[in-house]
C-alpha cells in the first residue's frame, strides 16, 4: 500500500507495475482526467489545491480500509495538485488482487471515499475567462466524473 499527494505528472503505468504480484490474477487501474466540459461549460484547465498533510493521511486511511475490506495489500493511490490541463491525470488508483470482483470493488471504494472525504478542492478555469471553485454538494444537472 502507498499513497501520495504530488505536484508532478502522474504515471499510471508505474502504479500498475507497482501492484503486480504473482499471486494476483486481476489488476484494475482507475485514472481520473481533466475533461474539456463540465455542466455544459467549456473548461480550459483545473487548479487543484489540498490540505496536503491531511489529504495524505485521509487517503492512506481509505486505502487501508479497502485493503482490509477486500483483502489485498496491493493498492496504490496518487492525487496530483497544482495547475492541470485538459487530459491530464488528476488521480490514479491501482489495485491488484487474486480475483477480479474484489479488484474492481476495492478500486471503486477508494475513488468514492476519496471524493467524499479527502480534503482536495478544484477551481475550474473556463474558456470564457472565468474561474470557479467546484462544489459537488451544490445542485447540479449532471454528475461529475
Amino acid at each position, binding site marked *: 500500500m502507498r499513497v501520495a499527494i504530488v505536484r508532478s505528472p502522474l504515471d499510471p503505468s508505474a502504479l500498475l507495475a507497482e501492484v503486480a504480484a504473482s499471486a494476483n490474477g486481476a489488476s484494475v487501474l482507475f485514472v*481520473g482526467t481533466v475533461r474539456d466540459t463540465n455542466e455544459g461549460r467549456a473548461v480550459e484547465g483545473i487548479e*487543484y*489545491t*489540498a*490540505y496536503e*498533510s*491531511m*489529504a495524505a*493521511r485521509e487517503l492512506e486511511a481509505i486505502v487501508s480500509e479497502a485493503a482490509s475490506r477486500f483483502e489485498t495489500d496491493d493498492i496504490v493511490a496518487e*492525487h496530483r495538485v497544482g495547475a492541470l490541463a485538459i487530459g491530464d491525470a*488528476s*488521480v490514479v488508483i491501482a489495485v491488484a488482487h487474486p480475483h477480479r470482483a474484489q479488484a474492481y470493488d476495492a478500486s471503486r471504494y477508494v*475513488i468514492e471515499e*476519496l*471524493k*467524499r*472525504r*479527502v*480534503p*482536495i*478542492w*478544484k*477551481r475550474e478555469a473556463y474558456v470564457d475567462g472565468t474561474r470557479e*471553485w*467546484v*462544489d*459537488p*454538494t*451544490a445542485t447540479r444537472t449532471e454528475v*461529475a*466524473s
Partner: protein
Amino acid sequence: MTITALLFASYAEAFGCDRLELEVPDGSTVGDFLQRLRGMDRDGRLPPAPLIAVNERYARQDRVLRAGDEVAVIPAVAGG
C-alpha cells in the same frame, strides 16, 4: 489559549487569508471557535455547519479544543 485556524479554497478567498491565530477561552469547543470565526465572515460564505478537522482529523462541533490545536475549516471537497 491560542488556536490556529486553516482556511482553504473558497473559504480562504472569502477571508482573504489561509491561516490565522485566534484567542479563545480555555475549554472552548469547535462550535465556540466557529462562532468567533463567523464574526469575521463579512461575506457570509461559511455554511451553517462547515466540515471541521482538528489536527488533520475530522471532528464534531462539541469537540473540546486544546492550546495549539490546528483547526481546519473545510469547504465541500472536490478531489478526483
